[in-house]
């Protein structure tokens, strides 16, 4: 077999992969249209005052794991404690922070120690103390030895009293009516196992008293492109998956779960790298095996805001960790792949995440390598290669701009015309350099996946005091 045959064969294989994957994206894009139509209608028609006065709202425990979050912990917990919801409690877990997170909590909320009054259903690292607040009756604070985010969430689940739990990152700002909106599927009588809301980028937004009062698109390129990335992931990716019945990702930063199901699978796995993906896949597996009727929808109007990395070093670490988590999860649950026992999750979602997401960086790099090889040996027609690249990048751009369209016709959080133009600009620039960088970071995940254990990953927080 000559080099020419290898290059031609690989080219063809990559072309087929490109066509299959992009056709699937097109399907998600089409399916997101009726979904956002329905969700927007329901979101607009909600009579929240009546709901807030209703006893029907299911009580919720908000789980807030915190590790070295002293910059944002007070503002975040204060914001969570003032949500517009009738019946909820907040369990903050200080996961053996090395900074003064615990001292901040003790001082800000006037905490006092109480005896532990619940059984340890899921085993966790030892608790040092349990605190209640003199000023905020909804607040419970656990101080425990460091065990990672999953361990903290498990400790919070043990301490929770209510049937629904929502995991919220300490650096995440939840919109006041987000919990109300998040419980809408329950009020519509659906068999919900978990429900996810939208996570948006808070960088450059004006934050007052732990609330985003003015949504702005960042002027810096790196966080700006991430705004488009988040819009694309949430507004058409997950909405499209709603219609396909196999949402595999409920964001760990903002997802509501039925506690009995989470407990039935032993809570979060402390050895997993990306605990939210692992939890959702295990939930699917458990519920499908036990033939439980359930849904795991994503609904777009409940919003939580989070700070995204502004430095490439931090962003690369984050993306590498996410991809390591994806690889580990797909490997761990490979038995579900193409397995009809797991319904659409096994037949559609798992193959998509394995071949379309996990292997994508490998295939993209292979494509670049083969093209360079072909050019070097004069086996690739240069205008054709350039045209192909143009089409590939143009398609990526189309998907990103489609996400901006969905945002514009539905929720329109960015009111200024300048912000809209910035979004369009970032959507156009994303494929020129940024995408290739993320491919490289994700590629590195393959190398490190067998070597590294579970870590929180350092994230430099600026806090939300003022817009940047």
């Amino acid at each position, binding site marked *: 077999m000559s080099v020419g045959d290898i290059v031609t064969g690989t080219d063809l294989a990559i072309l087929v992969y490109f066509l299959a994957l992009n056709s699937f994206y097109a399907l998600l894009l089409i399916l997101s249209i009726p979904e956002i139509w329905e969700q927007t209608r329901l979101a607009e028609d909600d009579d929240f005052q009546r709901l807030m006065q209703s006893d029907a*709202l299911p009580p919720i425990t908000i789980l807030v794991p915190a590790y070295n979050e002293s910059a944002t912990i007070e503002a975040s917990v204060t914001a969570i404690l003032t949500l517009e919801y009738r019946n909820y409690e907040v369990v903050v877990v200080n996961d053996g922070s090395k900074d003064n997170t615990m001292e901040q909590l003790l001082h800000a909320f006037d905490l006092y120690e109480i*005896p532990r*009054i619940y059984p340890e259903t899921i085993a966790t690292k030892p608790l040092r103390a349990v605190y209640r607040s003199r000023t905020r*009756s909804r607040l419970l604070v656990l101080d425990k030895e460091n065990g990672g985010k999953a361990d903290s969430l498990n400790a919070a689940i043990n301490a929770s009293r209510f049937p629904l739990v929502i995991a919220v990152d300490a650096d995440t700002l939840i919109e006041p009516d987000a919990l109300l909106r998040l419980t809408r599927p329950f009020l*519509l009588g659906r068999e919900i196992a978990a429900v996810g809301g939208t996570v948006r980028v808070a960088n450059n937004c004006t934050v007052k008293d732990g609330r985003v009062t003015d949504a702005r698109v960042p002027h810096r390129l790196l966080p700006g492109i991430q705004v488009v990335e988040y819009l694309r992931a949430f507004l058409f990716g997950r909405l499209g998956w709603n219609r396909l019945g196999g949402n595999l990702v409920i964001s760990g930063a903002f997802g509501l779960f039925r506690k009995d199901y989470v407990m039935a699978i032993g809570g979060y796995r402390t050895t997993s790298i990306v605990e939210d993906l692992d939890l959702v896949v295990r939930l699917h597996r458990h519920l499908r095996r036990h033939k439980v009727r359930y849904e795991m929808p994503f609904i777009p109007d409940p919003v939580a805001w989070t700070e995204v990395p502004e430095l490439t070093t931090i962003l690369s670490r984050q993306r590498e960790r996410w991809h390591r988590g994806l690889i580990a999860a797909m490997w761990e649950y490979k038995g579900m792949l193409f397995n009809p026992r797991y319904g659409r999750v096994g037949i559609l979602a798992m193959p998509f995440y394995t071949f379309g997401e996990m292997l994508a960086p490998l295939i993209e790099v292979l494509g670049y390598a083969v093209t360079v090889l072909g050019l070097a040996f004069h086996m690739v027609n240069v205008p054709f290669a350039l045209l192909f690249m143009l089409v590939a990048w143009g398609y990526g751009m*189309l998907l990103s*701009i489609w996400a901006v369209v969905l945002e514009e016709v539905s929720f329109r959080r960015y009111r200024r015309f300048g912000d809209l133009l910035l979004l*369009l600009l970032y959507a156009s620039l994303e494929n020129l350099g940024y995408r290739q960088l993320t491919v490289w970071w994700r590629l590195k995940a393959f190398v490190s996946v067998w070597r590294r254990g579970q870590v929180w990953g350092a994230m430099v927080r600026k806090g939300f005091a003022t817009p940047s």
Partner: protein
Amino acid sequence: VTSRQILLVVALVQGVLLGALIILIILNRWFRLRRNASVHPRRVTLDNAMRRWAAEGGPLGSVLVGFARLPASLAIDALVGWSARVPGERWRELAAELEHQWWARIVRTNSGSFRWWKRLECARFLSVAATPRDVARLVRLINDRHPAVHVAAVASLERMESAPLTLAALERMPRLASTVQAYYAGMLRRSRPVVIQHLQKRLGRTDDPALPRLVEFGVRLAEPALRERVTALAEHPDPEVRIQVSRGLGNFPHRESVAALTRLVADPAWEVRAQAARSLGMIADPTTLPLLRTALRDPIWWVRLRAGLALMRFGTAGRNALLEAEVGADGEARDTARMILGLPAQALAEFAA
């Protein structure tokens, strides 16, 4: 046709689509701004007219004109918004006048639309502006297959007293998911006499599959007229019914309730025992103190917790029972008593709630 030509066509199509999307985004923004600019002053005018009328200083006619000048969906939003701020009699006057408005007639005809969002619009309108002539329409909407529609329609019970409407909601309630049931229950509480009359009949049918949900709803009403029916179900073979009965009997301090709870606190199902212990605490009959001492040694943690918390409601006698258990021979009772006695008043109040 070569592959290069195909790619060229694809690239061209993509370019056109990209351009179209960008134009769509900009046009959409422009259209919305224009629409807001034209609708907002009309909404302000309506709110002013409404404010004057609500304070009995303005004519109803200007309010009706204000509603008619808004798009139907916005008029319904305004109507729902104002419904909580205008007293009942005056609101009924407005609802009666709206019956003759052209836009309201169109909204009403949407109750039979095949598009769910149109039916939802109608249900939201009727939830605040229904008249006795809308009962049949509302019954149909309460039985609608789309959850958002029937949830909106059942809210009409807040303002309408109608036996057919109440019975339609009561019939549908046990078949719904628990959260929706709770919402229905909240609405049905307002039609108490009809509900209680109906429940007295339904609670007598011991083979009714909806019985657990009806008992749950019935006991939450804490209606003395239902006590006998509820107590009679304490021996029901379905543990879910017994859970609801044992939970509810705490609301009926009566010797027959105590007798039933005495049996239920020894039930084979731990959930029944836990609820019975809680209810015994609510009644706090001194003769039941030994039962709770026994429950403090139950193999299930939740039963022990409920028994300990119930003992705290017996005053000094209960506290002494816990102090005895704290130094007693049974390890689990000892741990539970120690934990309960260490709870601050706030935590006890929260558990009691």
